[in-house]
C-alpha cells in the first residue's frame, strides 16, 4: 500500500496532542496501578518507590491536563472541528456500531460506509474523553484534599478508580484497533504516530464517505 497516493488524515497539532497524551496517559496508568493493590506496589520501584511514583503521577497529570488546555486556547478552530466530528451522528452510524461486535470477530462482515469518523470511534471518544475529565476532576481534589470538603474527597477515590477502569477498557480497544493489531486495521498506527497520512485504498476502506468527500473537493 506504500508508494500510492496518500490523503492527509491527522494534522500536526492533533498528532502532537496524541503523542503527549499517549506518553502521559501510559505513565499515569502505570504509576496509578502501583497504588491499585498493595501487591502492585513494586511497580513503583522504577520511580524510586511510591513517593517517587506519586510525584511522577502528578507531574504527568500536569501535562495530561495542561497540553489539551493550551491546544484548546491556541487551536480553537481545531477544537471546534474535533467537537463537530465526534458529535455528529449520521444515518449509517447506528447500524455500524451495532454491527461492530460481529465485525470484531468476523472481519469480512460487510460494514456500511462511514464519514470522517466511524461511529465506533465517536462512541469510544465519548467514553475516553468523559472518563479523562472524571479522572482529571477527581484527581485534582485528591491531590489537594485540604481545599475540598471531606465528603467530596471521599467520593473522589471510587470515582477516580471508576474513571481508570472505563478509560483502561476503552484504551485496550483503542490500542488493539489503533495500532492495527486487528487485521483489517493493519498500518493504522501511521495515521497518528507516523506522518498523519492514509493511503487512498485504506481511506476508502475505513471512511468511504469521508474519502469521497475529500476526493470530490480535490477534483473541483
Amino acid at each position, binding site marked *: 500500500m506504500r508508494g500510492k497516493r496518500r490523503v492527509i488524515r491527522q494534522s500536526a497539532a492533533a498528532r502532537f496532542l496524541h503523542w503527549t497524551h499517549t506518553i502521559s496517559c501510559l505513565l499515569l496508568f502505570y504509576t496509578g496501578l502501583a497504588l491499585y493493590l*498493595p501487591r502492585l506496589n513494586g511497580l513503583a520501584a522504577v520511580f524510586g518507590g511510591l513517593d517517587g511514583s506519586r510525584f511522577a503521577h502528578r507531574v504527568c497529570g500536569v501535562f495530561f491536563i495542561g497540553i489539551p488546555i493550551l491546544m484548546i486556547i491556541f487551536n480553537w478552530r481545531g477544537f471546534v472541528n474535533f467537537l463537530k466530528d465526534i458529535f455528529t451522528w449520521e444515518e449509517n452510524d447506528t447500524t455500524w456500531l451495532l454491527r461492530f461486535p460481529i465485525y470484531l470477530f*468476523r472481519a469480512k462482515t460487510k*460494514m456500511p460506509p462511514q464519514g470522517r469518523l466511524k461511529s465506533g470511534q465517536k462512541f469510544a471518544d465519548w467514553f475516553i474523553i468523559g472518563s479523562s475529565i472524571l479522572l482529571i476532576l477527581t484527581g485534582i481534589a485528591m491531590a489537594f484534599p485540604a481545599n475540598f470538603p471531606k465528603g467530596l474527597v471521599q467520593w473522589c*477515590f471510587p470515582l477516580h*478508580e471508576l474513571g481508570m477502569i472505563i478509560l483502561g477498557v476503552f484504551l485496550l480497544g483503542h490500542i488493539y484497533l489503533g495500532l492495527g493489531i*486487528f*487485521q483489517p486495521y493493519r498500518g493504522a498506527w501511521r495515521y497518528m504516530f507516523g506522518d498523519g497520512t492514509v493511503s487512498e485504498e485504506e481511506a476508502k476502506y475505513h471512511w468511504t464517505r469521508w474519502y469521497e468527500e475529500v476526493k470530490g473537493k480535490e477534483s473541483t
Partner: protein
Amino acid sequence: MAKAMLIDVSKCTACKGCQVACKAWNELPAEKTEFKGTYENPLSLSPTTWTRVKFIEMAENGEVKWLFLKTQCLHCTEATCVKVCPTGAAHKTEEGAILIDKEKCTGCKYCVQNCPFEIPKYDADENKVFKCRFCFDRVSNGLTPACALTCPPGAVRFGERDELVSLGRDRVSALKANGNPNAKLYGETELGGLGVMYVLPEKASIYGLPKEPRVPISVVLWEDILKPLGPILGGAAVAAFALSFLLNIGYKHGEEAEEGGEK
C-alpha cells in the same frame, strides 16, 4: 479478638493522666498549645498526641452538664483504614490492634480522609500517618496499655473482651437506673465490634461520635466493588481482543466482496 478496652465515660474525671502516660510510654513530645477558653488541651489529636480527653458542655433543662470523652483510635474490627490503605501499612494484629507500619506508610492520607472517627493524623515532616497503637509493645508482653494502667478512677480498663462487654452492660443498666435513660454501650457490635468500647451516659451524638458508625459507602464501592471489577473487565477485554485477533488471522482487504449482496 480476645483483648479489648472499655472506657467508662461516667467515671472519667478528665485528669488527663492517660494523655501523659501515653506520651511518656510512646516517647512523644509535648505540644505547644493555646488557651481557647476551655480546659480541653490539646484541642485535637495530632501525629504526636494519640489520645486526649474531649470536653463537652451540654445544656439540659437549664443546667449544664460537663462531659468528658477520652478519644483515641477505636481499633475497629471492620477497619476502614485497613481497607483503604494502598500499601498494606495499616493492618490488624492477632490481638486486634490496628497498626500503621511506618516502613510501609507512604503518607497518602487515604486513612486520614476516610476514618469514620477522624483518628489518624498526618505528619508532613515525616510524610507518615500516626495514631494510637493500642500499646501493642506492652500488650504483646502481657502488660496493660499505659493509659489503662494509669487511669486513677479506673475509667479505662483493659482485658478480655467478653468480660468487658458484660461489665459494660452492667454499667449501662446501672446508669439507666440512676437518671441516664440514654446510656449506651458503644462499640459492642459497631463496625464488627470495636476494640475500644465506651460506656456512654448520654447519646453518642452528644460526644461527637457517629450514631451508627460504618465504613463509608464510597469506600465500599471503591474497595469491594470497583477493585475486583477492574481486573475482571480488563481481563475480559484482553480475552475478547485476543479471540478477535485469532479469528481474523489471514484476513485480506476485499474479502467482503465474497459476501455478495449482503449489505
